[in-house]
């Protein structure tokens, strides 16, 4: 998992999606996820996926990286498809697309939104302990990732991870996890001390100067509403096959236009 890369994207990107606020993008994600839940038709699912690829293109980030990060759940969706195989490729395709589209939605959200903004948006609906736990977990991720990286390098250099010595590798790797955990705890305890000195009493304060709803927010939410309306409309109309194909053609046009736009204005 490329946590560091995603965090870099979220903090250094310069697209309209990066300019939009957390609440707008969360609403967009909720609308798209709802669309995924209510959509059962292959072409419409593909259309939603292509629409999201257009969004990924418009983020001006590496689309290949974003798509590869979002493709990870496909491995597990494939296992599920095999277990649920009924002889229909289209049905299996719908399941695969649901996994890929939902993952892409979330990756676009976190690759364009710094994590404090995401968690701040969730704060009103989450208990304090969970909200603060989210903050500290995310922060600890970077500390632990660096330590894990150093650990693996250290183990390899000292012959702790060797080919065909599986049992020894597991023992060394497990001790390594224990070491990372204890080192992480030491760092956390020091961090706790610093927080305590700075007045921490069990609640992390957040920025109360909320930003205004901008045109970027409106654009993002409007796109989400469009996707949701099309999904709901097609679901209710009953003319699923034909409408799904129309939606797919429109999504393909949006994708081509997005690529052409980014190619013209540059990254």
């Amino acid at each position, binding site marked *: 998992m490329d946590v560091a890369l995603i965090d870099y994207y979220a903090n250094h990107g310069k697209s309209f999606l990066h300019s939009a606020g957390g609440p707008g993008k969360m609403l967009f994600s909720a609308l798209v*996820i709802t669309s995924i*839940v*209510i*959509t*059962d038709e292959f072409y419409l699912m593909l259309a939603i996926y292509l629409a999201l690829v257009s969004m990924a293109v418009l983020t001006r980030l590496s689309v290949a990286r974003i798509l590869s*990060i979002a493709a*990870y*759940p496909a491995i*597990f969706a494939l*296992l*599920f498809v*095999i*277990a*649920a195989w*009924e002889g*229909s490729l289209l*049905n299996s395709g*719908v*399941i695969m697309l*649901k*996994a890929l589209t*939902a*993952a*892409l*939605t*979330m990756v676009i*959200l*976190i690759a364009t939104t710094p994590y404090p903004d*995401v968690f701040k948006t969730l704060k009103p609906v989450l208990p304090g*302990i*969970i909200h603060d*736990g*989210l903050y*500290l*977990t*995310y*922060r*600890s*991720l970077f*500390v*632990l*990732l660096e330590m894990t990286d150093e650990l693996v390098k250290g183990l390899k250099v000292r012959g702790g991870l060797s080919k065909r010595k599986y049992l020894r590798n*597991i*023992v060394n*790797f*497990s*001790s390594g*996890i*224990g*070491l990372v*955990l204890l080192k*992480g*705890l030491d*760092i*956390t305890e020091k961090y*706790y001390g610093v*927080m*305590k000195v700075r007045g*921490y009493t*069990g609640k992390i304060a957040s920025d109360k100067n909320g930003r205004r709803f901008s045109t970027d927010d409106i654009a993002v939410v409007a796109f989400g509403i469009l996707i949701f309306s099309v999904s709901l409309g097609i679901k209710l109309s009953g003319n699923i096959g034909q409408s799904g194909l129309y939606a797919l053609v429109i999504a393909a046009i949006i994708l081509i236009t997005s690529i052409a736009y980014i190619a013209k204005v540059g990254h």
Partner: protein
Amino acid sequence: MSHLHIPDGVLPWWLVLTGWICTAVLLTICIYRVRRMELARKIPLIGIVSALMVICMTLPIIPFAYHVNLSVVAGIILGPALAFISIFIVDLIIAMFGHGGITVVGLNTIVIGAEAVFGYYLFQTFKFLMGSYSVGWSSGIAAVLSLILSTSILVGLLYAAHVNPDLIIHREKEPYVESAIQDTESNVNNGVKIGVFAKTALTLLFFGWILEGVITGLVIKYVSGIRPDLIEHDTT
């Protein structure tokens, strides 16, 4: 790897909703139970244990894409209530990275939370029976048994879900209950062939359970050797 890597929109809404409601109730109970703890000190601990779980859960072990959860490690170190809270946080974060559907976070928390809670109590039982010198064995066996239990919950959930792409996608105009009864009668079980799924899952996951048990045992043994206070603490 006993949690649900099921995409959004595949499980029936009533099951997803039930998962969220049960998780909300369990979280409320957990938060109530830890209210007298010194949370200012515990929250950073939750952070580091959750972060370690997130890293392990997103590192697939080649070639069969298994990953360790370390949920029993979390249960032993944090105690059942804090571990359940920690697991909700982990599930929420990994769902944000597209690792499993966001709508199944509730169900995932129940499945992995069960691992942590049962792991903690089984560890305490084995430690009591085998003596405190066998923390490695106690935690390893507790991990394997907890994983068997959580996988059983997982298979049970899929059985309850009656997941069948064909039914969900093409028979939406039929009354759901009616079609469910028909398929149960014809022993299709309305979707994922539960026997096939259970056999596949149990065969694939067997090696994973052993691996996770060994890793859990070794991690806890290592931790107890250096910081026994983390294992012997007063937990809620």
